């Protein structure tokens, strides 16, 4: 059965149970001007995410799993298709929403955890983690308290809290990164290999935090290198396959088409 047919079934089944995100025939191609080439990341992906649902994105390396998350966060601009997100303000298509609306949603509703920590130099770990709370209007004292708690839960050594993360090891940086990304309330969280460089203790703490978020109704879409870490949380898998990356025909730029045609074959399969 094709991915489209199966996931439209999903929509029919669950649309009453607070669907949070409906990804519909979403495609991403990269146009590399200096090579005059177009590179396909994924094509015509369709799936549905409900509140409190944990969706695991699976597939071999380089198949576009991280790219999918980045398209939903709009770090990458989707080439075609829709990603209808049901925000507190109403439904909005993340694929083509205005930039200022996306900025607002990132501040209030959608979080993205990458594998890399990006902080300004001379900002301490605790300050970096407190920042999203300050942006949300909390007092510096309260934000600092919660930041300490989050770092403690992930097992970052207390003596590092007021140090600059640029000097930290990969695992320590990742703890700061996760604490920062998961501290403020979100409705949709995108996780890109968050456990890659974590020790066993921190992995357990993370899974615990994710379970809490899920319980609170937060929808999570994640890419995990070691999926067994989160096995108990997964409600649904979205599989990206190599044939969801059909090579574009002809010589790139001039012949490429933006519309997504003939979705039947290689879309992502959705499995419960």
């Amino acid at each position, binding site marked *: 059965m094709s991915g489209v047919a199966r996931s439209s079934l999903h929509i029919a089944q669950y649309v009453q149970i607070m669907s949070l995100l409906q990804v519909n025939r979403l495609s991403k191609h990269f*146009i590399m001007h*200096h090579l005059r080439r177009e590179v396909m990341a994924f094509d015509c992906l369709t799936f549905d995410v409900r509140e409190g649902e944990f969706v695991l994105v699976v597939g071999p390396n380089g198949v576009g799993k991280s790219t999918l998350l*980045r398209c939903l966060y709009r770090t990458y601009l*989707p080439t075609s298709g829709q990603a209808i997100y049901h925000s507190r303000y109403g439904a909005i298509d993340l694929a*083509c929403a*205005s930039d*200022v609306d996306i900025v607002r949603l990132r501040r209030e509703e959608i979080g993205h955890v990458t594998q890399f920590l990006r902080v*300004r*130099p*001379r900002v301490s770990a605790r300050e970096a983690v407190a920042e999203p709370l300050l942006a949300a209007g909390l007092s510096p004292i309260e934000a600092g308290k919660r930041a300490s708690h989050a770092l403690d839960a992930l097992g970052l050594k207390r003596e590092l809290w007021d140090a600059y993360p640029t000097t930290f090891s990969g695992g320590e940086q990742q703890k700061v990164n996760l604490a920062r990304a998961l501290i403020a309330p979100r409705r949709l969280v995108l996780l890109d290999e968050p456990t890659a460089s974590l020790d066993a203790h921190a992995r357990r703490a993370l899974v615990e935090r994710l379970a809490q978020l899920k319980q609170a109704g937060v929808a999570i879409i994640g890419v995990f290198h070691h999926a067994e870490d989160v096995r108990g949380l997964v409600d649904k898998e979205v599989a990206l396959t190599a044939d969801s990356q059909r090579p574009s025909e002809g010589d790139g730029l001039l012949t490429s088409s933006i519309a997504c045609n003939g979705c039947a074959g290689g879309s992502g399969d959705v499995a419960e």
Partner: protein
Amino acid sequence: MVTSSRDAPRPAPTRAPVIVASPPLLQVRGLVKRYGSHVVAVDRVDIEAYAGEVLGIVGESGSGKSTVLRLLNLEERPDAGEYFFNVPELTGRNLFALDRMAQRRVRTFDIGIVYQNPHLGLRMRNTSSGNIAERLIVAGERAYRTLRLAAREALAASEFPLDRMDDPPVRLSGGMQQRVQLAKAIALKPKLLLLDEPTTGLDVSVQALVLDTLKRLQRETGVTTIIVSHDLGVIRMLADRVMVMRYGRVVEQGLTDQVLEDPQDAYTQQLVHAKL
């Protein structure tokens, strides 16, 4: 080597905001500035900036980005264009068409600016506190005590060491001079803060501290900020959205991370990949 951006298939243009309900604070349409008969420094540029956001403008030297900032600061007259500020007393009035006195009022009360070169923004041999007081005097304040307090408050907000507030900028380090400019810019709590390469030329460590001050001030005051820089790292740290300029035109605009990580335009791709 560079293909014209017209050749490339472009993604559908993003829609007008639906969640952010209020109109932009600042709206510029059809901005044109020529120097002499055949230099077009700014060519039909449109800008929108929403309340509380940080908009970055990047481009190489000569792209027209600093000229745009001078025009927004009403320092120069454009050859064409309209400029609206969505504040009660100015709604619907083209700022470029105001008379000199009215423009001066807007520059005093609604706009603050920090230049790359502190000589442009400060009297280098007056005291630092005096530089800030001067701005308040222009605004009509006369009481010495009030001036002194306001200068102290603005300098503290920009994290300037207060024991040096009566030193003239000429005797201060580059980082401190930028903090005096910043204090002067924010002293009257403007609606719009313009930053022209505010950290270019500073030591890397000083740059980090000044950037941190800018970030904190922006968060605390919510002032709409437009920052011009050729440094993509600075833009990434501060800006929510970014416009890329080349030959006086805007070749691409979008969310900062999107423009830096998934640039659509051929020129932007070159610019982003040229970063060390």
